[in-house]
């Protein structure tokens, strides 16, 4: 309940800043551009596809690849959204307002996180509109679409949790952005390193840790409980670390 009040304030402040609006605009623009390109390609091979038995449909050939591209864009923009969450409050010294109010550290962190999640939800719901516009001239594979969208949501939520933690470490928003970008990219690249090492086909620890591995099966339409669990653990882990960090601030020596 208290977290929701904080989340509401956070979301409001986000939308009062030009940052949120420009990020929404830039993502929409890139998305539209990528989508058009893919759709164009699809239309060119559509005649040949219709001759095939069990041919891949528009969801598989257009929406999924574009969503994959969006994942990379999210990697770039989420650190920009998370960087201010705590570092700016620390810098403006407005944290004392929250610390001396009857709120627990958990509520403060959850409030911040939920507020950001609200924004991410807005961003991703907008992305859903373009595929739905194709409904006028064909049908979509809703199961696959949902799974891919869920993949994006979980991925963005995981990025946000890591970014929030980085923001709790410093009072410089840019530093928080760079650090979370570095961390996310590293977790992303684990997959590459793992792929080049593992020749025997077994999945290595590095690959398992990679954010990308779990994302890839989801975006192909396979909803695996272990993947969902991975994201949940990832998010909880970073939220707990952020709470610990705030508590440590009171105890600093």
């Amino acid at each position: 309940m208290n977290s929701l009040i904080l989340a509401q304030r956070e979301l409001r402040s986000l939308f009062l800043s030009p940052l949120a609006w420009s990020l929404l605009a830039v993502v929409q623009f890139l998305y539209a551009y990528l989508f058009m390109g893919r759709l164009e390609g699809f239309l060119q091979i559509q005649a040949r596809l219709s001759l095939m038995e069990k041919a891949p449909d528009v969801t598989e050939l257009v929406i999924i690849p574009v969503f994959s591209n969006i994942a990379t864009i999210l990697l770039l923009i989420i650190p920009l959204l998370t960087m201010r969450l705590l570092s700016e409050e620390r810098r403006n010294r407005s944290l004392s307002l929250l610390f001396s109010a009857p709120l627990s550290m958990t509520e403060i962190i959850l409030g911040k996180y939920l507020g950001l999640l609200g924004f991410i939800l807005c961003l991703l719901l907008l992305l859903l509109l373009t595929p739905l516009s194709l409904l006028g001239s064909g049908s979509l594979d809703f199961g696959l679409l949902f799974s891919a969208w869920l993949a994006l949501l979980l991925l963005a939520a995981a990025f946000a949790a890591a970014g929030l933690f980085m923001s709790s470490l410093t009072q410089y928003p840019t530093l928080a952005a760079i650090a979370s970008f570095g961390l996310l990219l590293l977790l992303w690249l684990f997959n590459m390193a793992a792929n080049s090492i593992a020749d025997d086909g077994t999945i290595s620890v590095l690959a398992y840790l990679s954010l990308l591995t779990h994302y890839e099966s989801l975006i192909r339409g396979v909803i695996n409980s272990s993947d969902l669990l991975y994201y949940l653990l990832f998010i909880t882990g970073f939220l707990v670390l952020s709470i610990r960090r705030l508590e440590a601030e009171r105890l600093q020596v």
Partner: protein
Amino acid sequence: MSEYLLQAEQLSRRFNHHTVVDDISFHVQRGQVMGFLGPNGAGKSTTMNMLSGNLAPSQGQITIAGFDLLDSPREAKAALGYLAENPPLYRELTVFEYLQFCARINQIPKAGVRAAMEMAMERCGLQEVSRRLIGNLSKGYQQRVGIAQAIIHLPQVVILDEPTVGLDPIQIREIRSLIRELGKEHAVILSTHILPEVQATCDQVQIINQGKMVFHDSIQGLEHRLQHNSLLVAFHHPPELADLQGLAGVERCDVLGNGQFRIHYKETSSPAEQLVARSVAQNWRLYELRPEQASLEDVFMELTHQEVTEPAA
């Protein structure tokens, strides 16, 4: 439940083995304004941060309205309003939105939010600016928004850390009268390094230096300490020094030149009346007679430099 709204027992805070606050104890009752004085870097803000739950003490215990700040922080903090040295404001919000948020996080039920906001805005004179962005307000108004935030939930204990810094004289007067008014129903702790502010607003005074409490008394006690038992006099036709020393009650007399003298007298036996009579009778042409008072600054310097430790009154 104790009669004290705020109790701090043997509070200490160390940073890296450097003791910033050392074994401070005090308590504040309802209806009291306590002034917390000290030079910059004395540990005032550290103490305020501990009292408001922003910093955990290394040692000691803080009880607010009967609730221990560490054991039941939620109840204790609900009875606490805090204005930090830098007012914790969200510059992108309007005064109205900000206070609404503050009311909500301080657990005011939804139905009472509006009334609480009206009360806080009226008391701090914010009605005209309620629709403006906090970032666009002047420093004085921002400070008032900070105070409004601290009193919006009518907390039993209000802690204000240097609330008049950066304000103009008129605003300072308004804020001081607001503090006095708050002191009627709440327990107020006011941290400052401006001495007249303490004289103007507080009932109790504490002076802290290098983390230690060096003075703790009522404002009357402080004022008593200011009495110097001396008169400054000036004549156009100065008399002989022996004449002045001959007055009843006079202990010693210093010549200051230009017809000026400083007369030290025994306590409670001021020779002023006698002096005026003699001056008229013998045509000394007295033109200045001034009881001397140590300024608060003098007392402050004396206390903070000699590190005299006063037993708590």
